[in-house]
């Protein structure tokens, strides 16, 4: 199915968030996730399923003021 990952359309084969992250190349990094604007905590990623067209945000630490 096609989802939107950090503003870009991507094709994924899996539906569980934890699997999608692995499929997209996020391997255990220090990240936070949100689906359609709602935070999905680390412990909920395995039970969270995405649908066609869902917006996934994957955020990580950066410099800030």
């Amino acid at each position, binding site marked *: 199915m096609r989802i939107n990952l950090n503003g870009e359309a991507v094709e994924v084969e899996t539906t569980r968030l934890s699997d999608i992250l692995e499929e997209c190349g996020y391997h255990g990094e220090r990240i936070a996730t*949100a689906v359609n604007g709602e935070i999905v905590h680390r412990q909920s990623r395995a039970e969270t399923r995405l649908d066609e067209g869902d917006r996934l945000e994957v955020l990580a630490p950066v410099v800030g003021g």
Partner: protein
Amino acid sequence: MPDSSAVNFYGVALDSALLLGTARYPSPAVLADAIRASRTEVVTVSLRRESAGGGSGQKFWDLIQDLGVRVLPNTASCYSVKDAVTTAHMAREVFETDWIKLEVIGHSDTLQPDIFGLVEAARILTKDGFKVFPYCTEDLVLADKLLQVGCEVLMPWGAPIGSGRGLNNVYGLKSLRAHFPDVPLVVDAGIGLPSHAAQAMELGYNAILLNTAVARAGDPVAMAGAFRDAIIAGRAAFLADPIEMSDLATPSTPVIGKAFLT
């Protein structure tokens, strides 16, 4: 010397009254050296989109961890309550702290806070267990409302973020200090020179949060040291009870005993 700069945020006592931003440095190495030179114990950080497999977030996190400083995540660039609240929750998970520098921006040119959204977001986040550091203006009514919803620190701007203009409204900042003598107050944003930081500390402010003035200086590490010293000096001056200004001159050398030579 460090005792004169001691500040306490939400029960955490710090020896340094300088909070330093981590953005806009020429390189990670210069950032690390500037943090060391500043002797800050708190640095601000943020969250942004991470490319798959990039690992840049983890590298930055490791750098900060190695420096042994506490982090204060921000909600920079959030223009709505929802955006700021969600970002704060994501930051708490990533940075493992309930401290949050709450920014709800209301105007893109000046980066002036949306004070109405700020109070609402602060109310929600305090209920959610956050220790909120609100980036606000020097408005007394706003300050009162932020305290009412649970903030125990206030961070009024000196001038617009990154402008380096110093303290735009000294009267307003003095008034805020006078009205809330027991609340930790941090001048956040607009500081351009160590003298600006010293001035705020001389007014009785408890700490200074700055970024660009150090990061974009010709020598960020040297400037970090200059701010460190200025903030210590400003705090010491406040504690030493400065004299009042006068419109008239007062001779400092004794007049009595002056010879008559003409």
